[in-house]
């Protein structure tokens, strides 16, 4: 399954509670699309967020966000993990 990282910018009212709630909704919806949202990273000050997701396609990852809360990423890239 491809691994993607998406990038959200310009989020004006980030709070940890709201992001947790959005992620919880992703987890509720993702099974319908064969998607697995794994982790996210947030910078409250700049309104930036990154989501790591396993998905059959970029569109499937977008569809989960769309159905769950409507907070769509600006960009999404297929990535591989290194350390």
């Amino acid at each position: 399954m491809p691994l993607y990282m998406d990038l959200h910018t310009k989020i004006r009212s980030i709070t940890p509670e709201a992001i947790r709630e959005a992620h919880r909704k992703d987890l509720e919806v993702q099974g319908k699309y064969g998607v697995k949202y794994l982790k996210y990273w947030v910078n409250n000050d700049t309104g930036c967020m990154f989501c790591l997701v396993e998905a059959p396609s970029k569109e499937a990852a977008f569809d989960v966000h769309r159905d769950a809360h409507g907070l769509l990423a600006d960009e999404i890239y297929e990535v591989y993990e290194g350390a």
Partner: protein
Amino acid sequence: MSKVKVSDLRYAAVGVPEYDKQVEFYEKQWGLEKVASDGDVTYFAAAGSPEQYVLRIRKSSDRRVDLVGFGVENAAGVDQLAGDLASEGVQIVAQPGQLQTPGGGYGFRFFDPDGRVVEISADVERRKYHVLEYRESVPAKLSHIVLNSPNPQLCMEWYEDKLGFKLSGWLGDFFGFLRCWPDFHNLAFVKNADANLHHISFELRGYDEYLRGTGKLVQAGVPMAWGVGKHTPADSSFSYFIDPNGYTTEYTAPQEKIVDDRAYKPPVWGPGGLPNAGDVWGTAGPRNMPEDLAHTGRTLPKDPGLWIAPPV
């Protein structure tokens, strides 16, 4: 039972006298995808959007706004909202029923306080789309619709109260912004002498694509009304062009999003607006938008389609 809230902006529909030129412009120059054509009506989708269509163009002797289309979550919501609005005295134009437009679905139509026709729908089949790639400089989606009104305060309150829109902010007391999902604005109202269309805005993937798309239109000789630039509200970039029927149509890059409705406090930039709020980058040059009474002193005639349902 809780009130039904609009959950997304679906499309704008206009009637225009120069139909062939309008269709050619939005397909060949603006970068929308023609998905259906039925005699004198053409439907356009945006490449990055699952909406069946984001713009409908109809041949008409008058230049008018035919419809503004919004979605709700399901068919039960359509029925409930139609019943609620009717009971509150809103004039229903078409009762809930199956839609015959691309993607089908279930919907109804009514007049808003200025007499625009609004369609609410659900269960419209999603269109196959693709997430736009770097340098793919065509519209990803319909971003927002801005409407002129002699009474924007009334319209703002009406859309908040009746349709569940959320207030995102005001520029002075003349330009109000509403959202129905996280994007800062999907709908806005501007003070003007008469009700008509201010502009329709299409979002491109990012700044690179927005500038490439803008450049392509400039090079092709499409008249630019204002831009390139960035507004303070929504942190939204803009390139306003004039389409073949004289409507203002915009390319923009992604705008601000609001994720925590409880924490967000809608600002008022004003009271007379904010210095440079319209042109944060200082790049936009002279402003020449025909709908823009506050800045050009000119205004358009009242939309002839107010309080008149379009034929389709």
